């Protein structure tokens, strides 16, 4: 069924439109879960970016008279925490931190991983072996301990946390890309490009990487989710973003004492973490389908 819809959809598109991006968009729009993921992420990003300006409370304002206010029961829409700080404001400010860490760590790890993977896969031989064994070596460290060990030495700031998370997340990208580039390198069109006098850099960046974009995008969206989770872990364990600056992770950390008496303190940031992580995962899935023009027959 999907076959017939895609062909009938594609025929007028090829006949009238010269912009292939429209077709990618159409493929993406057919992916319900991806649309949901995109909406969730847009809502989260927009909410966290603009939300704090729209509500009356500051995330750091302590109102000891109104501690543990229940959600939907008063002026504080999502209630207050143990110091009477507005939960909604804190969640939004925490979202800024967590999403920033997620995106920035994803960007760093994707760029670095793609670069390492491409060079290793393209040149192969000693260079490739050395680089990939290095990747294996870094992969051998248990991520969370590496993260904690690094965090113990590094002053935890937004920037250093991002860097540390990116440093533990680029290896998967490198592996995926290396495998892709190695197979693509053997394809005829890579040889054809070489026969045309294209340089190594040109073949790597213009011919091969665009062909590997689907797995890179999927790996990097998963990396956003992973980075958000890792930031939460580290902050939860107290080595990450330091209070009073909120992040979803350190909000969970604060909440654990009040798990029974004030469960919303844990449930709300947990929900947002889940929403963000699943949203990015679905988005990655949808992008993989949308970015592959071969699916559009």
């Amino acid at each position, binding site marked *: 069924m999907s076959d017939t819809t895609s062909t009938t959809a594609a025929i007028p598109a090829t006949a009238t439109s010269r912009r292939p991006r429209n077709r990618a968009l159409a493929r993406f729009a057919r992916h319900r879960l991806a649309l949901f993921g995109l909406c969730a992420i847009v809502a989260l990003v927009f909410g966290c970016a603009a939300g704090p300006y729209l509500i009356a409370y500051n995330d750091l304002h302590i109102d000891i008279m109104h501690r543990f206010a229940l959600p939907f029961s008063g002026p504080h829409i999502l209630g207050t925490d143990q110091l009477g700080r507005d939960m909604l404001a804190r969640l939004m400010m925490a979202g800024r931190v967590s999403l920033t860490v997620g995106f920035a760590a994803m960007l760093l790890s994707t760029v670095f991983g793609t670069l390492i993977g491409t060079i290793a896969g393209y040149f192969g031989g000693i260079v490739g072996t050395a680089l990939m064994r290095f990747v294996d070596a870094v992969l051998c460290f248990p991520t969370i301990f590496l993260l904690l060990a690094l965090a113990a030495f590094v002053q935890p700031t937004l920037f250093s946390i991002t860097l540390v998370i990116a440093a533990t997340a680029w290896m998967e990208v490198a592996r995926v890309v290396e495998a892709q580039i190695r197979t693509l390198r053997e*394809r*005829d069109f890579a040889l054809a490009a070489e026969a045309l006098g294209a340089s190594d850099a040109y073949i790597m960046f213009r011919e091969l990487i665009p062909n590997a974009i689907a797995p890179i995008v999927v790996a990097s969206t998963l990396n956003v989710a992973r980075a958000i989770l890792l930031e939460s872990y580290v902050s939860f364990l107290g080595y990450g973003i330091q209070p009073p600056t909120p992040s979803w992770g350190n909000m969970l950390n604060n909440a654990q004492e009040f798990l029974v008496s004030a469960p919303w303190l844990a449930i709300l940031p947990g929900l947002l973490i889940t929403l963000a992580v699943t949203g990015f995962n679905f988005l990655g899935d949808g992008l993989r389908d949308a970015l592959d023009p071969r699916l559009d027959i």
Partner: protein
Amino acid sequence: MGAAPPAMDAENLLEVEDLAVRFHTDAGTVAALNGVSFTVRPGETLALVGESGSGKSVTSLAIMRLTPPAPGCRVTGRILFRDRQAGTHDLLALPAEQMRALRGSRIAMIFQEPMTSLNPVMTIGDQIAEAIAVHRGTDRTSALASAAELLDLVGIPEPRKRLSSYPHHLSGGMRQRVMIAIALSCDPALLIADEPTTALDVTVQAQILDLLKNLQKTTGMAVVFITHNLGVVAEIADRVMVMYAGRVVEQAATRTLFRAPLMPYTAGLLHSVPRLRIGAGARAKLEAIQGNVPDPMNLPPGCAFAPRCRHVRPGLCDTAAPTLENASPGHRVRCVRWRELAPPMAAA
């Protein structure tokens, strides 16, 4: 190059001298090519014929310097390329940067598989335009305009519209036309066509051959045409070079070779082409050459074709490797018995 340009016959575009390619593997050394020499003149078509594994494609890759890097693969000999624009160079001694500048601009190549030789995620227009941009450094708009002209030249209808198509929108024949357009984008002096019609069906094959012939007439480029299809050879080639187990075994003008093949292998190839016949003899058995190409790691001591040859004479053919002899001007053959074998085979 600091030294004086290598000496070379002024009439030749390409001179290959004693070209040898060896692959070093864990199991031993494979001599993929051995002492191959030939010349190509401007505007002519030389066909390289032979079974799979005879060294045709390795020859073309060696000319393009696209063989795997040393130490796994070693290329020796001389490949002189003489061109009004680029000057005379020994391609094997050329620095990588200069070789890259020649590739695609002065020497172009088309490959066997049009289905996989185009980048699947780039539009046709971009792929042609970038081929132009790599060597000429023109801007995108004018490169795309030339791309459309090239598509028109190779007979693709609605070239403007096709610029934004992806390779999977096109049929095999169309893709091969696009490959030809890319190869022609910088007006090369030499086109190496590595079995460009093998993957296509017969009618499309004829169209592509026609196209190549016409383009050659208008551009004056020389073509090295690699194929195992003798029908295609008869159609397109001025001269033919037959290869076997990494060596040239016979070389002659197309007409001479088809009329009077001297090497038993060539005769065998010609006999193993099915003919359309009705009536008497229609069901005659197709004569195949018995056996297989010898293991390149373990070549027989004498003539490499001896184990499969009908005319083999023990003690003569299997002792020393025969040399390439001049049978007549322009006709070279590698067979110790060509003098005695020539008359009956020519009559056949």
